[in-house]
């Protein structure tokens, strides 16, 4: 029995009929759907316990603070962080990457280099360009090899004592490639570079253990892992996080303020100015509880099976190309594909007519698209509620596409 038989009924949105068909939602890598427990936890919070956190000396304020900080503890356990101080709430992966890039950028000197990869999402490219700008800092990039994995031979050439940052995705949002985080982080450390990992496509699908990954920073989003939009996590290894000078000021991130200066608060609050996403933290707690009840090892196994099924079945359809590592290799829960003679947006629009939701376009990874010489792809991605039948429905619809336009 596959995992979806246990989970499917927990997601109210999956009851929707789209264009006359049962919704087949294959766009969880963009944003996952939410189980009833997440939706209810958030409305329950608003209905019974909402107030601002940390400074409200009244019952509701205390309840809200307790819930918000309990979310931090939950995240700490979920990702195997050494302490709760290492867990900073952000607005999402993009926000976390910008926070780190902005803070690290201010420490860079002319001649320094930032190393990224050709398979990054724009959110792990553009913040580094901004950090490098006007500072005489160069952004370089590790190329992708033909099999959709990073060209690690090129890493030797590119990594040098000038490298101050190595930033890369744990799992590619297009290819599904799982990058060797521990190996890359260790290489970065050898040259004294800080390692920054975009975990947006990994946290929802793989068991995580920050103590074993060996990177300095790791960031992910709530909304891709069954939780709400508007919240994410930045994890930083104690001393690495401690070294980040805050770049955004406001309430809560200070201990004392004078007109001409201020003294920063302790971690993690120092990096959380303003009213945080409180209801979203409550929702994230419920999402993590849901995932933990299923077991992340089981989640990973289920989604890997769906990705493998898709990566095997789609190339057998005439005119269909699948990108990324071969089906036999471990991959994330995404499969990008194209249909000869059809633009990816037309593929997505035609599949939508069948109630099938897939992503299409450049997936915010234009450098990677240029590597393959294409403008975009369609992409099917999976979560705990998808079934082998969903993949069959997709394959059947894709096989019928070329006669449609």
């Amino acid at each position: 029995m596959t995992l979806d038989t246990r989970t499917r009924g927990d997601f109210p949105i999956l009851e929707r009929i789209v264009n006359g068909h049962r919704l087949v939602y294959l766009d969880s890598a963009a944003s996952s759907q939410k189980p009833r427990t997440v939706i209810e936890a958030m409305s329950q919070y608003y209905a019974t316990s909402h107030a601002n956190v940390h400074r409200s000396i009244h019952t509701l304020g205390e309840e809200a603070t307790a819930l918000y900080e309990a979310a931090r503890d939950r995240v700490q356990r979920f990702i195997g962080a050494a302490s709760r101080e290492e867990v900073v709430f952000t607005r999402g992966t993009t926000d976390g990457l910008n926070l780190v890039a902005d803070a690290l950028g201010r420490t860079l000197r002319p001649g320094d280099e930032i190393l990224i990869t050709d398979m990054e999402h724009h959110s792990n490219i553009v913040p580094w360009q901004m950090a490098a700008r006007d500072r005489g800092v160069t952004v370089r990039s590790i190329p992708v090899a033909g099999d959709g994995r990073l060209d690690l031979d090129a890493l030797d050439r590119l990594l040098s004592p000038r490298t101050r940052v190595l930033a890369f995705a744990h799992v590619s949002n297009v290819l599904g490639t799982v990058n060797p985080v521990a190996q890359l982080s260790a290489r970065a450390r050898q040259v004294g570079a800080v390692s920054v990992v975009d975990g947006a496509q990994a946290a929802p699908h793989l068991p995580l253990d920050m103590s074993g990954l060996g990177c300095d920073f790791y960031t992910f989003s709530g909304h891709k892992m069954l939780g709400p939009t508007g919240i994410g996590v930045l994890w930083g290894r104690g001393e690495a996080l401690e070294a980040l000078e805050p770049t955004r000021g406001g309430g809560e991130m200070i201990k004392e303020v004078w007109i001409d200066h201020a003294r920063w608060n302790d971690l993690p609050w120092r990096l959380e100015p303003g009213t945080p996403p409180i209801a979203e933290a409550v929702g994230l707690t419920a999402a993590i509880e849901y995932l933990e009840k299923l077991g992340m090892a089981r989640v990973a196994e289920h989604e890997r099976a769906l990705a493998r099924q898709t990566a095997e079945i789609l190339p057998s359809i005439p005119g269909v190309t699948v990108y990324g590592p071969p089906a036999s290799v471990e991959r994330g829960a995404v499969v990008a594909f194209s249909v000869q003679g059809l633009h990816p947006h037309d593929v997505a629009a035609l599949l939508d007519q069948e109630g099938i939701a897939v992503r299409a376009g450049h997936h915010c990874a234009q450098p990677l698209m240029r590597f393959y010489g294409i403008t975009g792809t369609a992409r099917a991605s999976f979560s705990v509620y998808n079934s082998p039948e969903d993949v069959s429905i997709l394959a059947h619809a894709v096989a019928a596409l070329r006669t449609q336009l």
Partner: protein
Amino acid sequence: MTPAARTGLYSETIRERWRQPRFRGELPGATAQAEDVNPLCGDRVRMMVRVHDGAVDAVRFTGDSCAICAASADVTAELSEGRPAAAAARLTTEDVLAVLQADIRPTRMRCVALPVSVLQEALRS
């Protein structure tokens, strides 16, 4: 595929223009051209025009785009060719939509609008 797909978003006109465009190709002797992308999807359209004595003598387009955008470019070229340049520059997305006869959703409206705005830019240059 459901009948809705055939008559809805992808009208007969769009499918026909996508399969057999009349104005796709290079334009030797073009007097003006412009190119732009759709930031949503990275679609790229180049419109080339040849203006002679204040009239649009010929229009061609190239690019890598979806069927809706390509059909729009083809219709945009057809509607502007042979017209006074000033009139062609006033062509609107609505004019193109009237020819396409398709149920274009808001998320895809930019696909229709892109060739029109690129043509306007070419005629301004």
